[in-house]
Every structure is written in C-alpha cells, then in structure tokens.
C-alpha cells in the first residue's frame, strides 16, 4: 500500500527531558525515522575537571533529578575504586537499601504517572485524580514511602546529602528503620493492587529481539557493581565498559549512540529482567507470572511491566536488607579513608533506566578526567531500531494512531533525556 505518513512530535511529553520523534513515510517507504535529542548540552564531564574528589557525587547527582541517588552512587564507586577505598558491610547494606528507594520511586513515577494515562485514555495523571482517585492516591502513597526511604538514609531523594566517599555523613536511628520496615510491610497491599492494575493494561503486541545488557551478580539481583552481562552471551568487568558501549556521535542527537554485539542493545528494567531473572525474589517471580512476562521477553513495551516486577522485588528485598541492618543495629562510623589520592576508577550501577558508568581519573585529590555513560544514551539506537521495525507493521493505521504507538514506544523506555545529552564518551588523551 503506497501511503504518505509524516509524524513530527515536538518535545514528546511525559518523559524526562526534550526529544522529538520524526518519521517520514513516502509512498509506503520509510525515508526518515529518528528520535531526535534536542536537549541542551550539559557538559558535566568538563565541569568535574579540577574539582575536589569529594564534590563529584554532589555535582553529578545534579545530572538527573529522577536518578540522583543512582548517579551519586556510581560516582562514589568510581572515586572509591580510584582511591583504593574499601567499604564497610554496613555501608554496602545501607547503599543497597537507599538504591531500592530510588528504583521504587522512579518506577512508580513512570508506570503510574507517565505510562498509565496512555492506557486509561487521559493526557496525564491529573484528570485521573478525579476519575480514579484511589489509583492516584495509591501511587502517591507508594511514591512517598519510596521517597521517605531515601530521605531516612541520605536526607532526600533529589539530591542526596549523606552519601559520601567511603560511607555516610549521617545515619538513621534503629527506630526510624523499624518504622520504615512496618510501612514497607503495610505497602504489600498496594503492591498487589499495582500488579492487579497492570495485569489489566494490555501492552501493544510488538516483538523485536535485540541484545539485552545489565549488570550481574550471581548472588543478588544486581543494581550496584557486579559485571556487565549480555543475553547474547559474554560478561565483561565494568572497567571494560568502553568495549561494550562503543559510542558514535550522530547529527540529530546531543546524546551519542551505542552498540555492542549487534547494531543496538537495550538496557533498563526489561534488560535486567532478561539477564537476572534467576536472582529475583520469589514474590517478584510470582508477580511476573501473574503479569504474563517471562525471560527472554522481546517486546519493548513490556519494559514498564518489568518495572512493576522490580517494584515487587525491591519492596521484598528492602525488608530483607532492613532485617540485616537491624540485626546488628546501626553504628555511626566515619567514612572509610582513601588509601591514595591519585588513581583511576570505574563505578557502575544499574539505575532505574539501565546501566550507568562513571569513570574518573583523580590526581592529588582533584578530578582530571571524567566520563559518564548514561542508560538512555545506550538505548537510543535501539529505540530507533524498534521504530524502524514497528512503523511498517502499522502503516494501515491512522496517522494519529501511528503517532501514539511511537510516543508510547519511546515512553516505554522511560527515557531520561537531561541525563543522556551529556552522556558523551569522553576519550582520555
């Protein structure tokens, strides 16, 4: 069927940051298919140069208001590896717990407030406050608990304060942690209701197999450290991230494109689910069955569903982590000191949107080289590959329907564009 379609979505809504979707079909042939990143360049890597190493995590958390804890943690791990710092068991537990707060916070924001309106026929969560107040209040309640978890551990979710090189500058009381544990247990009803809600939302049917990449550990569902692992096989130490991310600059994007073993790869909740399914909590696995998702899932729209599975996991694992911390009781301890003031380190975390790398070279306590590679940047080539595969299969639909399918596809990736527009791979000379 010869058909002309022109999709031009300027500043796609309900995503973080500024992007345009441009699709041009002439006589049934796909001429142009781009997710343009028009976010202003931000230059964080250049900003870090010359700054004291203790500032790096506070500066880079400002890359993103949604994944501020993730950036801070990746930044701290880069610095700690560069300076030979070994963390206490308590620090490792508290950081993981803090991270769960961010994953929950971000996923609740994305699934309830950014994605769900597409399925409920509204433009935003605001009309839902009147038509489905119980759903909105549940989302706000869950998000508040996730935020309070972060607040208890690091002062606030955007932007964390107490996270510092080698440990923490503030500690929660045992009573505060006990109260959090009680609230997390009480949240299980809301989590069940969330799974029930997303069972009813039918994701568009679209499959395109790709390479899925996530951090991996054998003994936990990995968000911090670990090795880089791929569904196409292979693992890499995080220090070898450049051999996985292989970035290119393209003219239509202030964020670079990445490829590993294929033309593109995907990171994020769906990639983690596909790579690390075995490490999920049993309740999260049960939720996955209820939600009709199993590895390896190749429908990118299911990324939002994988996020629901991760919410279940994080609630359950946070309770387990709290029990571990409370078994010993919280100890006020000084941050672990640096063994040296010069060195190079790579910090890697799987933040809500996927694998994040920070790489610093520090000399005499000052950052001299910095490179950050952000999840959304890694996903851009894959989003476009999905768009190119999807458009020809829906050409019989109206322009409006095609536009919505594309917007929903981009939204499913939960892009964080403010982050990505400076995710440029800086080569150290």
């Amino acid at each position, binding site marked *: 069927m010869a058909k002309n379609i022109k999709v031009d979505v300027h*500043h796609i*809504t*309900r*995503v*973080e*940051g500024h992007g345009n979707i441009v699709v041009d079909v002439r006589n049934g042939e796909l001429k142009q298919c781009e997710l343009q990143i028009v976010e*202003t*360049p*931000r*230059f964080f*890597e*250049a*900003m870090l*140069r*010359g*700054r*004291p190493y203790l*500032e790096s995590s*506070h*500066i880079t958390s*400002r*890359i*993103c*208001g*949604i994944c*501020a804890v993730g950036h801070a943690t990746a930044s701290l791990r880069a610095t700690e590896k560069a300076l030979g710092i070994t963390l206490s068991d308590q620090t490792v537990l508290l950081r993981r717990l803090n991270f769960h707060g961010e994953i929950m916070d971000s996923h609740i*924001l994305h699934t309830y*407030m*950014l994605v769900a*309106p597409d399925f409920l026929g509204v*433009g*935003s*969560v*605001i009309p839902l*406050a009147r038509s489905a107040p119980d759903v909105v*209040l549940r989302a*706000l*309640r869950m*998000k*508040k608990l996730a*935020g309070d978890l972060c607040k208890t551990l*690091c*002062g*606030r979710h*955007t*932007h964390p*304060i*107490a996270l510092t090189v080698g440990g*923490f*500058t*503030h500690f929660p009381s045992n009573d505060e942690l006990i109260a959090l544990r009680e609230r997390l247990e009480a949240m299980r009803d809301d989590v069940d209701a969330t799974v029930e809600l997303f069972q009813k939302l039918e994701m568009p049917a679209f499959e395109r197999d790709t390479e899925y990449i996530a951090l991996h550990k054998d003994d936990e569902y990995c968000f911090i450290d670990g090795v880089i692992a791929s569904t196409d096989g292979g693992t890499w130490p995080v220090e070898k991230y450049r051999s996985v991310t292989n970035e290119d*600059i393209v*003219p239509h994007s*202030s964020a670079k494109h990445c490829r590993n073993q294929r033309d593109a790869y995907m990171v994020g909740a769906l990639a983690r689910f596909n790579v690390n399914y075995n490490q999920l909590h049993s309740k999260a696995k049960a939720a996955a069955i209820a939600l009709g998702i199993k590895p390896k899932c190749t429908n990118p729209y299911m990324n939002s569903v994988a996020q629901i599975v991760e919410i279940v996991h994080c609630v359950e694992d946070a309770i387990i982590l709290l029990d571990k911390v409370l078994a010993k009781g919280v100890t006020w301890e000084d941050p672990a000191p640096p063994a040296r003031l010069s060195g190079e380190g790579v910090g890697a975390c799987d933040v809500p949107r996927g694998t994040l790398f920070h790489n610093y070279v520090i000399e005499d306590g000052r950052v001299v080289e910095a490179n950050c590679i952000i999840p959304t940047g890694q996903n851009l080539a894959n989003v476009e590959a999905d768009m190119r595969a999807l458009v020809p299969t829906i050409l019989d639909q109206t322009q409006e329907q095609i536009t919505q399918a594309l917007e929903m596809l981009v939204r499913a990736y939960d892009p964080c564009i*403010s*982050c990505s527009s*400076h995710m*440029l791979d*800086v*080569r150290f000379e």
Partner: protein
Amino acid sequence: MSARPKVAFFEFTSCEGCQLTVLDALQDHPELLDAIEIVQFREAMSERGQDYQIAFIEGSCSRPSDEAKLKEIRAQASIVIALGACAHLGGINAIRNRAPLAEVRAYVYGDKAEWFETYPARAISAVIPVDAVLPGCPIDRRELVRAVTHLLQGRLPYIPDQPLCIECKLKENVCVYQRGKVCLGPITLAGCDAICPTYGDGCEGCRGLIAHPNLESLRLVMAEHGVPEAEIEAKMTMFLTNQMEALQEAG
C-alpha cells in the same frame, strides 16, 4: 488573580528535579490541584494550554535559542517565578563558565562541538525580568506550598533574608566547622531548614547569597579552621559562580 489561577511549568538547562519536587509536594498536599489549574507541565502531562497566568521556570539559559522561548513565556505570564538554583543563579551549570567555552565543548563533543549550540549558563533573570524566586537545589517542598499560598493571596512569594546559620542553630545542630567540615551557612539564604548540615554535610550555597554577605568574615573563619585556599575557592564556585563573579565586578 483569578480564584483558580492557571499555572504552567517550563524547563531549560536542568535535571528537572525541581519539577519532580513539585510532583512530590502533591503527596502531602493533593489539595494544591484544587487551588491551581496546571495547564502545562511537559514532564507529567500531554495537555498544553497556552493561557497561563503564572509561569514557573526551571533551568538555566545556556544557549541562544532558549532566549526567544523565555521571552515568549514572559509575554504571556503575569508572574514569572524562577524555580530552583539553575533558573535563580545559573546553578551547578555555571561551573563550566569558569573554563574557556571552546575547551569545555571540545572536551565533551570533540571535533563535533559545533553541532550543538551553547554559551555560558546564566540565571533566567539575565534574559527576562523575574518576579520571584524559589531558591535551592532542589527547591524546598514547604517553601513551594507557602509560595502557592502567597500567590493565591494575591502577593508574591516572600523569602526572609537571613542566613542559614539561624535555622541551623534553631535545629540545635553541632556546627559542621566543629566537625571538621566547610560550610557556607553564614552567607547563604536560609529556608531549607538547614538540611545539609542536619545530614552531616556543610552548606554548599545552593540557595544563593543573602543580601549583604560578609565574605571577608567567612574567609577568616575558614582560615582559622585551616581550610586550604583551593578548597574555599571550590566551595564558593559550586553554585555561586555567577554571583561571585558579579560581586567581583561590582568591587
């Protein structure tokens, strides 16, 4: 101002964390949605109303093409409020202003630097008149709720001009200088409930300077505590690059 004013949110160079803080304020104050009508909020909604009276603007102006959009917002809104440190001060973005622009661009984008337009990061007040400011990185939720209350009462948000140390003392925090850290509390505008010292870190100055900061006195305090000159310089230029530059120019 109408009974339920129409409000729009915009963002320029920023992390959008201040707008997220607005969303988070709804957790405790869902009644805000009854008090104001949000007609534009790209991060959270698809509707795009153009008939707003109040504009909250997050982010710095960091490229020439942002100026026209800022002027367009100013032309529509009766009240423009800078939301957070990036819009208020240039914020963290202004760190890069301290190095030559060509060097900064080349470091990140290599020989493709010309593809992406940029210039030094500035407060939005450098481009358009601003009626009020909600300072901080990020903004303070309670201050936002108070600001909306003020607006509904037909007045501009008011932030008392007093240093952070006052709030910190009221919280009975141990002074972070006594804990061996550097703090900009004596010169920084209060209103965040001294959140950084409360969580064990020194104030970084994200809310900007009080009206008459005694910089010399603060430098003496820092010197007494043996803070190296380079560290003082770093502290003063994390959020305050543009304000320090303006002070120097003013002599």
